[in-house]
């Protein structure tokens, strides 16, 4: 870790450069390879970018974006609550696990697209069925990882909690949840992006707006530059969400990496902001992986 300000600044720059070189290279490659393309399926990157920028800064897509991502966050939140609750229950009880795991695996394997008719009849064509589908897609990675995370908590820790008769709600909040957290965050990380894909799927039927609707509609209209623009936008959003979550993850899993920040410095630390987090994480990983 660097101690001086300018040192930290340099570290941030370095980390950003490391993160950026490959995407930049690929974008450049794509740009030149597609520049003279006449195929409707492979529009020049320039045109895709123009459409994307127009769509977002021209405000054309804002309504769709807000609609879709409202559904997305509600769905993700529901998945989180259900995934954690069921995951903790099933993970901490061998009996429940034995009985219910096969059913959960079965439900997990059911194609949501096929349930759409029932969902639409039950929930209509408003945001509800979309939220349902997003939650349905997101819940599984969270649930499975929670189950496995809870099972992986060292027996000695569980035994301690039992010996001190920690009541259930406390045990969940202070022992099981933090203990399983390293694996839970993995589930959430995966759910974040699965949710985005489900967002598209959810707007295939019964929709009149939304980013997914826009992408599907443009595909159907053979406006593939728009389709590309939409999918790239979705990809970038996926990156941004994951990056934001990584910051959060970095913070809550500090103990897991054996990295401590003194209590007194916690607050100032927050103000160092995003860059410091990214840089800190990078430096930490470098340190952890010394041969």
């Amino acid at each position, binding site marked *: 870790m660097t101690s001086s300000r300018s040192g930290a600044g340099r570290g941030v720059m370095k980390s950003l450069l490391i993160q950026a070189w490959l995407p930049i290279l690929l974008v450049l490659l794509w740009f030149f390879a597609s520049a003279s393309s006449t195929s409707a399926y492979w529009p020049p990157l320039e045109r895709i970018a123009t459409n994307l920028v127009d769509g977002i800064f021209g405000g054309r897509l804002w309504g769709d974006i807000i609609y879709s991502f409202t559904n997305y966050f509600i769905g993700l939140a529901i998945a989180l609550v259900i995934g954690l609750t069921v995951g903790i229950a099933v993970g901490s009880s061998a009996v429940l696990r034995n009985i219910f795991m096969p059913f959960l695996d079965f439900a997990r394997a059911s194609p949501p697209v096929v349930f759409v008719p029932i969902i639409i009849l039950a929930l209509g064509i408003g945001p509800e069925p979309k939220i349902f589908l997003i939650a349905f897609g997101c819940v599984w990675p969270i649930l499975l990882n929670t189950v*496995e995370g809870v099972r992986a908590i060292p027996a000695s820790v569980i035994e301690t909690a039992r010996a001190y008769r920690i009541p259930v709600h406390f045990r969940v909040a202070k022992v099981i949840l933090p203990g399983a957290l390293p694996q839970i965050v993995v589930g959430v990380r995966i759910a974040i992006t699965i949710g985005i894909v489900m967002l598209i799927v959810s707007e295939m039927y019964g929709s009149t707006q939304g980013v997914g609707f826009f992408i599907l509609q443009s595909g159907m209209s053979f406006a593939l530059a728009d389709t590309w623009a939409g999918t790239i936008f979705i990809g970038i959003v996926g990156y941004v969400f994951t990056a934001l979550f990584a910051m959060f993850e970095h913070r809550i899993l500090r103990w897991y990496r054996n990295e401590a920040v003194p209590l007194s410095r916690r607050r100032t630390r927050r103000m160092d902001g995003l860059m410091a987090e990214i840089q800190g994480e990078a430096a930490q990983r470098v340190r952890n992986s010394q041969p």
Partner: protein
Amino acid sequence: MLSRAVRTRTGVVVARLIVALLAIGCWQLAVSTTLLPANVLPAPFSVVESFATQIISPDYWKAIGDTFAGALLGLAFGIIVGVPVGMLTGRRPLIELSTRFLFDFGRAFPAIALIPVLILLLGRTTDMKAVVVFTAVVFPIIVQAQHGVRSVTASIEETVRSFRIPPHLVVLKVMLPSAAPFLATGFRLGATIAVLVSLGTEVLTGAAGVGAELGEAQQGGDTPLAYVFLLTACILGFAVSAVVSFAQDRLIRWQTEGNED
């Protein structure tokens, strides 16, 4: 001791049966009360009937084979590529940082929205299905593997370093077992995602398989048949995932240290 184990095992089976019957009961109830009309949710019995006719038809098995082929091919490549890539990027921060955008972008990139482009590239073949499946499963597996290799505890890390264990053994004997719970979860997620995506692609493109049959049954208004294929899909996904679970319990025996309730 033994009798107790048997009792609990039969107990589990009975409990599972009860849950299954309850679920089917709810289904029947929803149909009987016409909560959901029969052309949306057929009665369980009519589905079973339809199942019986399908199960003897070779076309049914061929469809399953087609769906499986795409799913397993994609999953296999997803594992072959995802595990090493995840382990490498999980341990090497420089590579991880370099590929971070690509991976996070790729994970959210909805390949399904670009199916026309994929058809253009690969045609409506098993390969195309496998590619779509691959793009869907590889990233979850990478993420699981990344976090898995970071789960090696500090004490073990130090032990391994002090005994100068060479990298290949560290990977095989330390990182893989330590990451096993993470990897197994990745495989189980991947297994069902693979079947779902394979099926979804078939529904969307009409490529041969359970999905195409299902789409056709829906188009033809034969709802019980559609449910047969729906259940088939569930069973396929469940089967793949169960195989992975079984292997997990077999291979990760040390985990039995676990918290017995």
